[in-house]
């Protein structure tokens, strides 16, 4: 049962991910954004199959519920015709390939390091309290967690500064 579900969900995820970037039926960015939502929800489904309910629901809450909504918000307001007419430049392809290659390298090296054995399956499970303890215990993930928090704070301050109309008032 789990095996069949895994293949169905992964197929949907991959198919929709392809549709995000190369949709043969429409070049509308809104369609791409919606396929991105379906991809994110199928990834959440994969997390559920790994018993990682917390990560699954956070995936939906943050990416599908907030990030892509903001994408849509912007896409609805800008002039999409300009974007649809744009031709893809050579430099864009090169930089995209470099980015994708680096990402694939990171994923493959991480997989090789941890191995493909099913012994790691339980490592991803976690009740909310276990996750909380891991985040806030010294010697576990306290330092990375705090660094990410500071990073987010900096990002918030930066965006407020950029968005502020009257910079003298800040």
């Amino acid at each position: 049962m789990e095996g069949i579900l895994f293949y169905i969900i992964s197929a949907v995820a991959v198919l929709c991910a392809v549709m995000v970037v190369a949709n043969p039926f429409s070049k509308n960015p809104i369609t791409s954004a919606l396929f991105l939502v379906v991809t994110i929800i199928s990834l959440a489904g994969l997390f559920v199959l790994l018993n990682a309910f917390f990560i699954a629901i956070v995936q939906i809450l943050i990416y599908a519920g907030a990030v892509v909504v903001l994408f849509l918000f912007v896409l609805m307001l800008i002039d999409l015709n300009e974007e649809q007419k744009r031709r893809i430049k050579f430099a864009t392809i090169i930089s995209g390939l470099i980015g994708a290659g680096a990402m694939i390298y990171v994923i493959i090296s991480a997989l090789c390091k941890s191995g493909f054995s099913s012994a790691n399956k339980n490592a991803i499970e976690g009740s909310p309290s276990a996750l909380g303890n891991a985040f806030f215990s010294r010697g576990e993930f306290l330092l990375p967690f705090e660094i990410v928090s500071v990073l987010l704070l900096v990002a918030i301050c930066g965006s407020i500064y950029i968005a502020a109309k009257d910079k003298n008032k800040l």
Partner: protein
Amino acid sequence: MSNETAFVVFSAIKAIAGFSIMMFMVAYVVLAERRVCAFIQDRYGPNRAGPFGLLQPIADAVKAFIKEDFTPAHVRKVFFWLAPAIIMMPAIINLAVIPFGSQLGKQPMVIADLNIGVLYIFGIASLGVYGIVLAGYAANSKYPLIGGVRSAAQLVSYEVAMALSIIPVLMIAGSMSLQEIVGAQSGGFFKWFVFQQPLAFAIFLGASFAETNRTPFDLPEAEQELAGGYNVEYSAIKFAMFFMGEYANMILASAVIVTLFFGGWTLPIFGLDKPAQTLLAGIAHICIFLSKLCFFLLVFIWTRWMFPRFRYDQLMRLSWKAFVPLALINIAVTAILMWIKK
């Protein structure tokens, strides 16, 4: 029957029963809204179909189905069809984690008691915005688009306030499972989180009005300024789907308020705050939950006809400059109090 088949069968029965009760309630909440609004405005409201107008929902449904389902020429067809379907989904999916009773016999009266129930509700509810945004975009004309954009901004802003407001409740209950949150409120009226966390309740109530697009926060569909907002171009059953979606979300919001702040299916008299041992007590728990639910539906309806709408900048200011900071202060104060008590 093996354990697994029994689980599947009982889950299916509970899911179908929950869905049917919800759809039935949607039909009658619409009627209640029209009647209550009529009484508030010193009118009669729909009272012709059946006694007290009780058959009105059937008449409305027949009308919605047999009306011409008109698709304007300028709309984006795929999104136009997708939006009304999406708008109903979150409320129905979220039904799965609401504990609507303790137990009947051996069966717990909740479809899936997740240990992250509260997060699940927020996660799925956050998908609700797609229905409205897509409807606004699909219509391909200016008023629906303004309605859609307004709703995207409004729902994302109030989600933050809503999620922050219930953190103190989760801290006191020590769990995100809704059944355990209900359990934490047993043993006296003052154990209910509305009395322990009145500020959290006030913020949550305000934010849920905003999340369900109800007055005083119904800017996405403000009739007077947007001619109806995101649903202007819709007719017949597609329009009815938006209507039903709004009421389904309202029922769900009331159910969450009852569960988080008003003790869910418990009542601290006659020992009704413990999981039921007999069949009768189990049914009593379901009735208690439904009556609390109906009370909050009435609050939603009553509020709509008593208060004027916010202006858009006031709406945003209320969320970001009042609700969010107050919720953060509430978290800090609760944490310090819990630490001192320890």
